[in-house]
């Protein structure tokens, strides 16, 4: 049957909706090859339709299969684009190496462009009122208290607070910090709120 490989590819993606898998270079290459082959067959048969009119419908059927393959490949890519966007919102503009390695080079380019477009937009916010932009990846939850107690999950290093104090974030150290200054580190999994 037509377009079966590409379905395997999509089913793979559906299985892990919460993480991003390694870009499947090899399978995509195979599918593109399959498309070139169908296309070549169509070119040949199209030339032969003079003698055999019925071949024309065959050409059309193959063309549908080509369109189907194209749709599936684009859907695969688009689905990954959405996941890569989530990576930007959750990890920030710098991806951990092990996550970055899962993306194709072109995808990493896209990530960078997405990230810089987002940054430009966020910088433009509140300019007329003297704010130097607003970071929309912060303030994600309704605030409950100004300070919270947190546990440091890994060795992070120094953190400079707005009031100029510098604290050391070492693995298993506990801190009492302004919510606004540690929420991003919590989202990134470096700190954990103690409740």
């Amino acid at each position, binding site marked *: 049957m037509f377009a079966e490989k590409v379905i395997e590819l999509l089913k793979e993606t559906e299985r892990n909706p919460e993480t991003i898998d390694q870009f499947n270079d090899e399978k995509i290459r195979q599918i593109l090859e399959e498309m070139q082959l169908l296309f070549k067959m169509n070119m040949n048969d199209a030339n032969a339709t003079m003698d055999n009119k019925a071949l024309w419908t065959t050409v059309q059927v193959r063309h549908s299969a080509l369109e189907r393959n194209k*749709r599936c490949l684009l859907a695969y890519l688009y689905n990954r684009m959405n996941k890569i966007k989530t990576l930007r919102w959750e990890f920030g503009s710098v991806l951990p190496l092990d996550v970055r390695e899962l993306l194709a080079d072109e995808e990493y380019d896209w990530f960078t462009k997405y990230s810089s477009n987002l940054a430009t937009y966020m910088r433009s916010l509140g300019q007329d009122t003297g704010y130097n932009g607003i970071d929309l990846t912060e303030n994600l939850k309704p605030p409950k*208290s100004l300070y919270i107690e947190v546990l440091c999950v890994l060795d992070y290093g120094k953190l400079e607070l707005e009031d100029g104090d510098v604290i050391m974030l070492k693995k298993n150290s506990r801190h009492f910090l302004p919510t606004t200054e540690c929420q991003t580190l919590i989202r990134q999994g470096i700190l954990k709120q103690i409740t």
Partner: protein
Amino acid sequence: MDPYEIEFIGENRIISIIPNFTYDKIYLICGEFGPFRAGLPMNVPLWLALMLKQKQKCRIVPPDWMDMDALENIKEEEKRSRFFTKMPNEHYMVEAKLILGAASEDVPNASEIKTVIKDIWDIRMSKLRTSMDALMKSGGGYGRLDHLTMMEINSVKPLLPAAMDSLLRIQMKSKKTTPANLNVSSFSQSGGSSQNI
């Protein structure tokens, strides 16, 4: 929406506190409050009341509706009526949860009150499930839901609207006589055009 976001909206409600300190009026963006006079009741938004309570700077005056007799009546009425009755407060559950959670010592009969409010909530939630099922069976295109609070409405999302969407979708799709070509174009463009004002 997340329940905490609805709680956040409910926290804007004004309630009464008795501060134990004296201070000038405070000018907030959401309005001016005060002056604070130790021992004298005054109005503030719920979020501010909770903040002051946490810092042990005030006592919370229980809202009028947090009264055993009144609540027992509401509960009976809710049981009797086929419809949802009007609640004393459109964020009753948020107010109850926050005030009873942070300042139960300020509310007389706090634990009884907690129980009766929970009973009312449970009665309404079970009524809500029955009415959802009835709505779907009777048509599933439109429903009127007076007197439901925002938290209650939120509890049926996304289930009820999604089911109503599916119903409409099936009605539209199974009616369509000319199928479009799937891979060439999207085949359910029904929601296509955006509105212009």
